[in-house]
């Protein structure tokens, strides 16, 4: 898309999204002091080195047998009970419990990375998936990668917790390419861990 078209597009198509973002940021700014932001950023900087210690990073070191011996929680859903944690190019990979579409891992991207030539959607639908390796459930943000037509290498349909489009944040049929700066054309889907499910 040419820059001139980009401007035009942004004004027309994504204006509502822009307004929503602006409103949210203004509210945030209105409620937050500058010192508070600095303090939070400082806290974040201090916390970053601790991220590798979180369970998500230790998962690769654990084994299902070891976890099973410790009496971890059982999968709460049928997908989780059969999921695996080794091959992110397969549809039964644990993070894909509510994915619908093409795996970005098979399209030149990664589990949380878009392929080159595409752009990630700022918004996403959310799933809660069980990791058989550490026995925990995590919140997963499924973001679409946008701007090129369908990639089609590995196409999956996970429906754990998938609700109809009148519950949009839990619906995997919607093209989530709002406000990407590209066209809303869907290429593939990523599955980023955004936290532990309670």
């Amino acid at each position: 898309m040419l820059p001139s078209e980009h401007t035009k597009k942004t004004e027309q198509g994504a204006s509502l999204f822009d307004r929503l973002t602006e409103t949210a940021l203004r509210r945030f700014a209105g409620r937050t002091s500058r010192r508070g932001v600095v303090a939070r950023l400082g806290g974040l900087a201090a916390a970053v080195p601790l991220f590798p210690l979180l369970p998500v990073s230790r998962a690769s070191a654990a084994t299902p047998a070891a976890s099973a011996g410790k009496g971890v929680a059982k999968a709460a859903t049928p997908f989780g009970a059969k999921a695996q944690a080794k091959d992110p190019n397969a549809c039964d990979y644990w993070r894909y419990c509510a994915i619908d579409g093409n795996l970005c891992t098979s399209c030149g991207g990664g589990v949380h990375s878009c392929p080159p030539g595409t752009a990630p959607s700022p918004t996403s639908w959310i799933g809660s998936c069980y990791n058989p390796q550490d026995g925990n459930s995590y919140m997963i943000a499924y973001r679409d990668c946008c701007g090129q037509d369908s990639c089609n290498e590995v196409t999956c349909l996970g429906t754990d917790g998938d609700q109809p489009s009148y519950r949009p944040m839990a619906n995997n049929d919607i093209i989530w390419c709002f406000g990407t700066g590209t066209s809303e054309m869907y290429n593939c889907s990523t599955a980023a861990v955004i936290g532990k499910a309670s």
Partner: protein
Amino acid sequence: MSVLCPRKFWVGLLLGSAAFFSSVAPVLAAEPVLQTEQSDVVTLKPYSPHTVLVEDAVYTHNKDGRVNVVDADKGVLLGMVQAAYNPNVVLAPDASRFYVGETTWERGNRGARNDLLAEYDALTLKLMVDEKLPSRALVTPKRNNLAISADGARVYVYQMSPANAVEVVDTKDHKVTHTVEVPGCALAYAWGNAGFSSLCGDGSLSNVSLEADGKASVTHTAPFFEPDKDGIFEQSPSVAKDGSTYFISYSGKVYPTILSANSTVQPAWSLQVGAGLKPASDASAPFEVTWRPGGWQMSALHKATHELYVLMHRGTFWTHKDAGTEVWVYNTETHQRIRRMPLKVASTMVGITQDEAPLMFTTDEEGNFFISDARTGKLLRTMKVLGTSLIFTVAPGEG
């Protein structure tokens, strides 16, 4: 061939040819002499109850979707029109026109976006009006992202940009007369000539009555289902003429509903109980394996006989998009299963014609189109690889 004596060769060839043609001349004389021909374009006959529209979303390259016009009696393709990027289609009540909701970008995958409502003459497949819309929802197409009023005077376009709204298009003036916000709700189920309802995230219905001058009044029903535990299929069948709708839940509850400005929802009955089984579990006990409804266009209604066709499969809860291995048919008045028809190939789609000898349509992952006798389930004919991703049918007289 004698290369050295070309003249002799040609004389011989001519004589030989003359002898050959003289011997077969009486046979050829019986054949009419072919006339010169003019190139022309076919016009279709008025639609029979078995002339159906078949939407192909072409998931592998979405911008190339299409709507096929099929003669289901013969199993032949009569024509097709382009229908780009998660398109949708509705047929006018008199089957004279159909409307395709589609989205294009001016330079293929980039450039200015155009959301369009294209009106086609159903017999010539000529584009009559190419109307630009403010927006439309980009979502894997469900029939009720687009709807048409009982008299065909209005088309309803569900919009998610990302706020939820429904655009109302006047099909005579070709203008968007209303854009009705339906916050927290989605889809459009048309009722009567000037109203629609949307399903909402709190388990209620939003009912919109259209008035003149771009005004609309909105009412809400009380919540009647729990989306977290047991959502209602968006593809539940409805009839615009009288507002009769059968909202089917993931677990198999059927909520008979009359849509109107004050929609009424009757107590639910169970697909499983109607088939002699115990009711199926919802999300609170997801591991229970039993017969459940599922697929994409997972249900169809035969209005005159009050028969509800539902794709069924055996599975746990959260298998609501699994293909159906059987079609179960219910009488919506007795709530009993009256037929059980196993499919040779599991299908995510079921469609029905509305006549006295109805046909049933199913598909498979290869894009084959199966045409069966809806009264017996007997496969009558197969259109091999009619498309890529056949997701629903539209037959005359459904609304």
